């Protein structure tokens, strides 16, 4: 929709351009920003003109996702030798309510920074131990696990003027066996719960609960846990909540059910020799 209070638009070309004047906001793809009235916003600073690469493969391994990489680009990430986690990228994209048309515009960084509990780029990052590089207005940078950025349903730890530059996913996570489940009140609706699991090459296991809880719950185990253990940890996860997309008790209930499905799947996968 038209943002009728906005009277200035700047296409950013340099880090200097990202210093915000009062009333200005960072514009990623714009698919959320333009979807609701923003009456306190008077100016937009467009990140998509920064020319950041969508995808990079750092020398030390792993994957670097530019903040302005679109969901469409990430969902079509080429397969790479040994990256068994590859299916998770498309699966996470499909967990969005957003249609593939929106994937063409919406950015990975925008989804993370919007910080909706149901934001599945956050799910992806939580599943794969992703970290974010944050640019601060004073010119310094810092790195933070993406799962730790979130503080609530559409709130996060980013300070005013801070900009997410990229997301790094470590090599070991990309090489893991992964599992994925999503459930919503409608078949392809906005997620009520997104569950992931992975078993790294060293046998350690990581499960994540997102969308069902206000902020990501990441459960870590030295080896694949027992069903009972996982169920108990799922039940004890913090932040199950009520909203029009599901009740807290249902989210808790289905999280346990679907995590167990993932655990069983991974157990079978792990029995197959590499």
């Amino acid at each position, binding site marked *: *929709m*038209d*943002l*009728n*209070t*906005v*009277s*200035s*638009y700047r*296409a950013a070309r340099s880090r200097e351009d990202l210093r915000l004047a009062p009333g200005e906001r960072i*514009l990623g793809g*714009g*698919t*959320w*920003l*333009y*979807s*609701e*009235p*923003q*009456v306190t*916003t008077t*100016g*937009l600073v*467009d990140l*998509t003109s920064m020319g950041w690469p969508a995808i990079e493969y750092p020398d030390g391994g792993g994957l670097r996702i530019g903040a302005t990489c679109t969901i*469409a680009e990430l969902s079509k990430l080429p397969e790479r030798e040994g990256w068994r986690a590859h299916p998770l990228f498309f699966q996470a994209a*499909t967990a969005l*309510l*957003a*249609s*593939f*048309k*929106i994937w*063409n*515009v919406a950015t990975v960084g925008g989804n993370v920074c919007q910080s909706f509990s149901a934001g599945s780029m956050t799910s992806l990052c939580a599943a794969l131990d992703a970290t974010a590089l944050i640019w601060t207005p004073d010119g310094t940078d810092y790195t933070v696990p993406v799962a730790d950025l979130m503080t609530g349903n559409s709130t996060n730890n980013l300070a005013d003027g801070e900009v997410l530059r990229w997301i790094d996913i470590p090599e070991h996570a990309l090489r893991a066996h992964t599992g994925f489940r999503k*459930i919503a*009140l*409608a*078949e*392809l*609706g*906005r997620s*009520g719960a997104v569950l992931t699991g992975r078993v790294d090459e060293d046998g350690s296991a990581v499960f994540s609960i997102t969308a069902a809880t206000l902020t990501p719950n990441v459960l870590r185990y030295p080896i694949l846990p027992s069903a009972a253990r996982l169920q108990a940890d799922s039940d004890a996860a913090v932040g199950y909540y009520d*909203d*029009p*997309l*599901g*009740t807290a*008790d*249902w989210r808790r*209930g*289905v999280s346990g*059910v*679907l995590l167990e499905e993932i655990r069983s799947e991974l157990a079978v996968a792990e029995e197959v020799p590499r």
Partner: protein
Amino acid sequence: MRFTVNGAPVEAEPRAGQALRTLLRETGHTEVKKGCDAGDCGACAVILDGEPIHSCIYPAQRMDGREVTTVLGLGTPDDLHPMQEAFVEHFGFQCGFCTAGMIVTASTLDEESLDDLPRLMKGNLCRCTGYRSVTESIAAGVSESARPGRAVNLGSTGLDDRPSPVHSPVHEPETSGHAPAEPTAGRSIHPPAAKRVVTGSEPYTFDEPVDGALTLRVLGSPHAHARILSIDTSAAEALDGVELVLTAADVPKTLYSTARHEHRGDDPDDTLMLDTIARFRGQRVAAVVARTAAIAEEACRLIEIDWEILPAVFDPEEARAPGAPLIHPDRTPADRVDHADRNVIAAMHEGFGDIESALRDSAVTVSGSWQTQRISHAQLETHGSVGWVDETGRLVIRTSSQVPFLVRDELCHLFGLEQSAMRVFTARVGGGFGGKQEIFSEDLVALAVLRLGRPVAYELSRNDEFVRTSVRHPMRVTVDLGADARGRLTAMKVDVLSDTGAYGNHSRGVMFHGCAESMSLYNSPVKRVDAEAVYTNNVPSGAFRGYGLGQVILGVESAMDELAIRLGIDPFELRRINAVTPSDPVLAGHGHAEADVVWGSYGLDQCLDLAQDALRRGNGVEAPAGDHWKVGEGMAAAMIATMAPRGHISRVHVTLRPDGMYDVGVGTSEFGNGTTTVHAQLSSTALGTTTDRIRIRQSDTDAAAYDTGAFASAGTTVAGKALYSASLALRGVILEAAVAISGAALDECELGPSGVVADNRLIGFPELIAAVPAPHRSGDGVTAAGSEFGDVRSLAFNVQAFRVAVNVLTGQVRILQSVQSADAGTVLNPEQCRGQVEGGVAQGIGGALYEEVMLDGEGGILNPVFRTYRVPQMADIPVTEVYFAETSDDLGPLGAKSMSESPYNPVAPALGNAIRRAIGVRPYEQPFSRDRIWRLLNP
């Protein structure tokens, strides 16, 4: 900046915060529609540099050097894109408002996409069709080789392989020579507007911009119940570009109802155009008219109001209890408010026989209490109107309405105008479902135009639709049934509490209608109904497809199912035992039959057989693997009168022109119901011509003498009947002229597309017209009129059946088979009628499983956007097998009955009954959402 649209260069300076959608529309591309303006519905989809996007959430500032293709760039009415052709051929639209974006998206797909279609199309919402015809259209459109799947099981015999004219690819009959054209009634004729709809070029309400139109925006109350102590509009008025600020001080002091009916006295006079008391959050309390939307919105924010907060009540039971805050304390029965002293707007307490003793003496009794939710109509075109003063000084309102004549009459009443001083019309309407049987925009636009003398437009946003139009009445329906051991009903007791919200709107009619055919469907020696509709400080409820029947039918049909379980009787059989037949009186709560209801035909017996047979046959779809999926079957029946009670009027005319074209003037609206197609068929059939020779001008107070409007499924049974009668009258006049000219006997004269053949000679239309007596002549043609008054009504039936699988671990409900049988009388246009049934089932599934306008307990709406209000997507709607009973009605034109709202009514109880039989626990609260089903199993 420069960019191209459909290959043509555009130079524009978009505003800093502008979205591409409005930029495209401002540069003339009104084929790009607005459904939600938030990226959820897809009506605005365009292709940008080869990739489809939602233009409503795309920054216009990024457009320099880009290339846009809209639906009109894919093809034009004269040169359709294959995808557009497919949507025409396969009836892939009804109202057509979603179609432009649907086709743009589909045009980017290929054959490989078909397996993944529900995901790829999830960003394109259609509220009308139920998606089956959309899916078939896309399948045909992506591939030359893909042939339309022959529709499954359509035909009244219920046989899969029945060769049926329904699927004949030839929709328009051939004409040869001067012989009468083959009758088009009964054939699947395409909508006359089809090629324009699929190219986005059929104009809806705001698609033909009015030069110099100002923009109107409203300020909503932040409080659920509050009084305005003072209002300061000075800062708003001082804003550059503001032309007018309206408050309660500026509006007529006449009370009215936003609801419209044939008789204005049917609905309560409890509303002022702008009031000093706000009775729900979001109620409009001021309006600003300004040069631009941005200025009008800014001015609204500058209005300062000093409020006195009043106590509010949100629960209907509390609202009618002693001591509750009174919401309309000054209203009286003369205003059609029965008991303002306890917030009860309408009450019905009647019955026959002694209900308590009848229940006590029954061999078996069942009892339950069902709760329905608020549902948004979610028609893709939001409400809105644009008004101006025409060259003769008349006030003209172009609006998105099901009832343009009733809007005119009420505005004349409010402003003290003569009917001749006002014209109201609608172009094609982008869906209604009852929501446009109300005045939500036209009143303020009329006032602003009268004050300013300049054009004014007021287009509601999707948020406005949720916050300040209307929702389906939530009802608590308690049903007690008694029966003897063989299943014959001995007692029926229904208790209804309906929450009308802050204004009465349709509450009276909905309550009375809701308790009518739901209860009269079954014979019982003793019946009792206690129903009340109650004011609360919630968003107002209004007319919604089914008009109250769906809610009460949920209770009655679920209780019938419980009775069947208790007695061990098949649920179809239980209906056969108890349903009314033409030898029975039709009795609701009161003990006397409604005098205007007659048995014009009867098809319930066939409907029960058709649905039961289909369920027995099955469809080969199996439940997902695993013990946690439980399977169950359920059904429900519904009856509906073929038109509204107490009169529904249509006065139409047909004019023959010398070139053999017929100009039809009819008052009812086309909003996806397919009425226009059926009208062309009825008229051409009567006149022995082809449908392309019928030119229909409709839904315009200038085009016809009168029409009560497009509600209660009256498009065929009332307006269609009037038109058929006018066409027959015109035929008579033409043939008499032929007799006079030729001297042949009347039965030797044949009216065809080129004139009358008599005595082996063709008498052309100019000669015929010249021979017609002067009283029938008008201009260069001959005119006949026809009327229908709706004095007598018949009854129509629907039976819905489901087989479902329920995942007891997650609450997921998967529909394995969906069947609906319908008693529509003569089916005038099988594909369209099938589409009405499918669309009704889809909307019913939405209400049964997904949709719910949620409140925060203080009158605020928690989910006023489509991403959280779950309108069914393609993935949510299974194919429904549709069967028609073979009946012919004595009242309807060519034996047709109504079939628009009724398919919705049995869906929710049929699903609830199937779920109950799958999991052994009955759901009582609609929607039967996954979290609620899960809770039933994990209490």
